């Protein structure tokens, strides 16, 4: 390079999980912005600290847990100074000073110094044989002790202490765990679960002394024992202190950075000195410090974003969950489970199976969960906890888990650990457990997204997401899978669906490039996930103004037919309410013969499907169908699909109302509208419900005295009965409520989020309030829907068959006869 650009210097103190995660995320966002130097006290690359427990237990080796080898730093032009400790930060000159006295300048500094184990100030704590449990060095010393000595005492009955005790026991030592309180892991477990845990650890040979206060560590040249407050003593050749961690912020504090229990940072992970960032266990954010990786990774992302000068993202704190990594013990805990006057609990206890579950609810939401013995649903509860889902509608069955609710979980006995490698995890993409485990361990995958990208598992319908998370947790042993609370719309941005929708309105953004520019998209033209989403949001927000971007539509919506696996298309003409006529049927028959359409099939939504149409024949097929009075059935659309009806009072002896007529009316009013995901309706003429209205997105069940309106059902990947919304007396009111409901969904739903998911997310009561109770609001919603229909109700087939719209789409550009 001739005129070499002088890059800014980024210095990182701390070569650990949070610091390097930040660097990785920074490289993704702005690979060439900085000259990066990393200082780390430990003489290694970056390794997975979480997995020290399995290393201690002999289930993994140190090599297994390396995340970034020394080569990685080289490949990414990062200067790694391992084994070097920084002893001072000189903010005046913007330099860091190494222990050896060398000064290294920085433009920006990242402090990621983690934390140190708390060593109780007991007499004898300096004796050889007394150690903490934090790094490879500690683990090496423990392993060595286990070959030379017999008796170990672990002080601290929390997560770390129990994992240390388990490892030492596996290495053949006699282990006693000393705990100050009478419940193990009291920060994560309630007394019942703590008792179950203690029992099963005792069965494996662990000994407990609790409640007990350690008073002194005994010995001359090396530890020989421990004395307690009650005067008793225990022999010990090794004492592991695992009573907690203390954020390591001395360095920052000496440099004059504001610290309380950790280095205090803002929502952008900056310290009081704007050039200096901090992430990881050493920081305090909004009064919180964290000791688990999931929140640290969230912080890393935000910090990287800011370092990359992409602004915008902020860290809002995290909710965490815990899993104990002792093989064979299933334990999961999340959120807040202390009893309280405003809280309710659901408890399931099955002593024979060794299962205990306690779910804590507050304001209809899950706020805490403790699971023991059967933790398969842990991630599922945790998801609802983080999302703040209103769970009142599933309350009775909540404690039995996702499978029981038809949410695609699996039952307890079926836990992933017990599955064979051949067990298929992802039905959509045919990925078995072995393949996922292999990818996770060989390619060092961390997150659900990584697994999706590498194996395709859970990348389609997503119903196996819970399982894949289980496989991740089981393979890695930790809780990595926790995604940030707000899910970004896709990988091209850090913003959530809600953010995007809000900003489109606030900033009056009216084109896809405008949204991408304003919200600082990370890719040039987005991708196949975000472009269709943005196109829909703009279309729904600015009816009549926004010009639909055909190139941002999935092929089916671009050509108004459904692509099939061989690249041909299927065509479904609209049949209002499922009613047809002899002349329509004749026209369909003629078309099928004329164009040699191989398959003609009746669909589940009471329509006729012509399958196997060649793309170039589409306009002609449509022209013939148009001539017979038929229009597109939008069978391909994220929009109103079908209204299924029964014959109702016109023919049926049980019919109470004209269900067919009402269905036709609804369909005629609503066809052509685009929605976040497909919308299917059903109208049944009496509670016998022949039109299966109660598993549709919106269903009407006619009764003598009027019309019951139901919604948020599903009968696809998931099966879910509808929720009752309201009952009205006339057809007109029915139409008004359903249209208003659909409009609310159009305005608030996330792209590809079915109505039932939307309802789960925002809550049935919320929706009822705005659609049923608040009549003025209902009328306003109705009016907005009606307004946008003016622009939506043109038959896309007619436009293309006879008005030449998009002609290019259907004809080849050229035909070549090559020699």
């Amino acid at each position, binding site marked *: 390079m001739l005129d070499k650009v002088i890059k800014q210097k980024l210095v990182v103190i701390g070569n650990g999980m949070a610091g390097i995660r930040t660097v990785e995320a920074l490289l993704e966002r702005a690979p060439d912005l900085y000259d990066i130097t990393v200082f780390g006290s430990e003489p290694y690359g970056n390794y997975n600290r979480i997995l020290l427990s399995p290393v201690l237990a002999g289930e993994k080796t140190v090599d297994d847990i390396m995340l970034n080898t020394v080569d990685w730093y080289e490949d990414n032009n990062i200067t790694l100074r391992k084994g070097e400790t920084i002893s001072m930060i000189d903010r005046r000159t913007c330099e860091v000073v190494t222990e050896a006295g060398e000064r290294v300048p920085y433009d920006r500094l990242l402090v990621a110094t983690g934390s140190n184990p708390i060593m109780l100030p007991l007499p004898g704590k300096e004796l050889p044989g007394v150690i903490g449990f934090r790094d490879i060095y500690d683990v090496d010393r423990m392993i060595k002790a286990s070959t030379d000595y017999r008796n170990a005492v672990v002080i601290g009955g929390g997560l770390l202490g129990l994992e240390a005790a388990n490892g030492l026991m596996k290495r053949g030592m006699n282990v006693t765990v000393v705990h100050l309180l009478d419940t193990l892991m009291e920060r994560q477990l309630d007394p019942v679960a703590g008792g179950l845990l203690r029992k099963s650890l005792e069965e494996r040979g662990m000994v407990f002394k609790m409640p007990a206060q350690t008073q002194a560590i005994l010995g001359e040249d090396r530890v020989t024992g421990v004395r307690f407050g009650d005067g008793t003593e225990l022999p010990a050749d090794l004492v592991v202190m695992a009573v907690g961690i203390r954020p390591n912020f001395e360095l920052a504090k000496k440099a004059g950075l504001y610290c309380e229990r950790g280095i205090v940072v803002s929502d952008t992970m900056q310290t009081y000195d704007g050039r200096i960032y901090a992430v990881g266990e050493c920081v305090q954010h909004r009064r919180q410090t964290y000791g688990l990786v999931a929140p640290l990774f969230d912080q890393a992302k935000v910090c990287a974003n800011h370092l990359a000068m992409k602004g915008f993202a902020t860290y809002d704190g995290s909710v965490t969950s815990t899993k104990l990594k002792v093989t064979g013990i299933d334990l999961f805990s999340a959120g807040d489970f202390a009893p309280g006057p405003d809280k309710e609990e659901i408890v399931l206890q099955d002593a024979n199976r060794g299962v205990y579950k306690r779910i804590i609810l507050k304001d209809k939401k899950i706020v805490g969960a403790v699971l023991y013995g059967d933790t398969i649903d842990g991630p599922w509860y945790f998801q609802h906890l983080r999302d703040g889902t209103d769970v009142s509608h599933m309350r009775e069955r909540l404690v039995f888990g996702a499978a029981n609710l038809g949410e695609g979980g699996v039952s307890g006995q079926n836990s992933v650990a017990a599955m064979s490698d051949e067990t298929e995890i992802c039905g959509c993409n045919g990925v078995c457990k072995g393949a996922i485990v292999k990818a996770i361990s060989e390619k060092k995958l961390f997150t659900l997204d990584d697994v999706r990208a590498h194996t395709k598992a859970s990348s389609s319908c997503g119903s196996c997401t819970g399982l894949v998370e289980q496989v991740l947790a089981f393979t890695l042993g930790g809780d990595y899978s926790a995604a940030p609370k707000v899910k970004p719309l896709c990988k091209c941005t850090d913003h959530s669906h809600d953010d995007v929708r809000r900003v489109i309105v606030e900033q009056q953004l009216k084109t896809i490039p405008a949204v991408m520019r304003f919200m600082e998209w990370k890719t*040039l*033209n*987005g991708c196949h996930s975000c472009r269709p989403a943005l196109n829909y949001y703009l279309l729904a927000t600015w009816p009549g103004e926004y010009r639909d971007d055909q*190139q941002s*539509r999935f092929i089916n919506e*671009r050509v108004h037919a459904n692509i099939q696996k061989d*690249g041909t298309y299927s065509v479904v003409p609209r049949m209002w309410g499922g009613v047809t006529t002899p002349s329509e049927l004749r026209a369909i028959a003629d078309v099928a013969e004329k164009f040699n359409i191989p398959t003609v099939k009746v669909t589940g939504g009471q329509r006729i499907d012509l399958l196997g149409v060649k793309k170039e024949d589409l306009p002609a097929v449509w022209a013939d169908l148009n001539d017979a009075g038929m229009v597109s059935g939008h069978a391909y659309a994220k929009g109103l699909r079908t209204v299924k009806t029964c014959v109702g009072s016109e023919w049926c002896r049980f019919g109470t109302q004209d269900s067919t007529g009402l269905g036709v009316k609804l369909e005629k009013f609503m066809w052509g509208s685009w929605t976040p995901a497909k919308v299917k309706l059903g109208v049944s003429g009496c509670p016998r419900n022949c039109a299966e209205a109660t598993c549709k997105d919106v269903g009407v069940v006619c009764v003598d005295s009027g019309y019951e309106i139901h919604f948020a059902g599903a009968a696809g990947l998931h099966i879910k009965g509808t929720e009752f919304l309201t009952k009205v007396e006339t057809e007109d009111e029915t139409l008004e409520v359903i249209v208003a409901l659909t409009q609310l969904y159009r305005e608030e739903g996330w792209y590809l989020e079915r109505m039932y998911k939307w309802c789960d997310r925002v809550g049935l009561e919320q929706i009822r309030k705005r659609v049923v109770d608040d009549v003025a609001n209902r009328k306003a919603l109705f009016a907005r829907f009606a307004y946008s229909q003016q622009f939506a109700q043109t038959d896309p087939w007619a436009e293309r068959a006879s008005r030449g719209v998009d002609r290019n789409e259907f004809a080849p*550009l*050229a*035909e070549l006869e090559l020699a």
Partner: protein
Amino acid sequence: MTSWIEIGALDDIPRLGSRVVRTPGGNIAVFRTESDEVFALDDRCPHKGGPLSQGIVHNKRVTCPLHNFVIELASGQAVAPDEGCTHTHPAKVENGIVWLSVRQAAAVS
């Protein structure tokens, strides 16, 4: 030897879109990027043969409509972690006209 064949006007291909050219050896998809570059690939996804011309084009990539493989337009390579490759053909634009040079080997499926 490269023999160029004129296949049509650039404006007949939508930006961030594609059109197909029929050849006896199968369809070739011709893509146009946002900045008016053109690329030509066999219209067959390396995964299960999906028609790439029907996919969503973003930057210099296309996403297959069948199972979302992402293919680099310049090289025909699937973007990692997916694997596979589609044959490419030289294509260029001159004065608003698109030219294609069909690589015979590639046209044999």
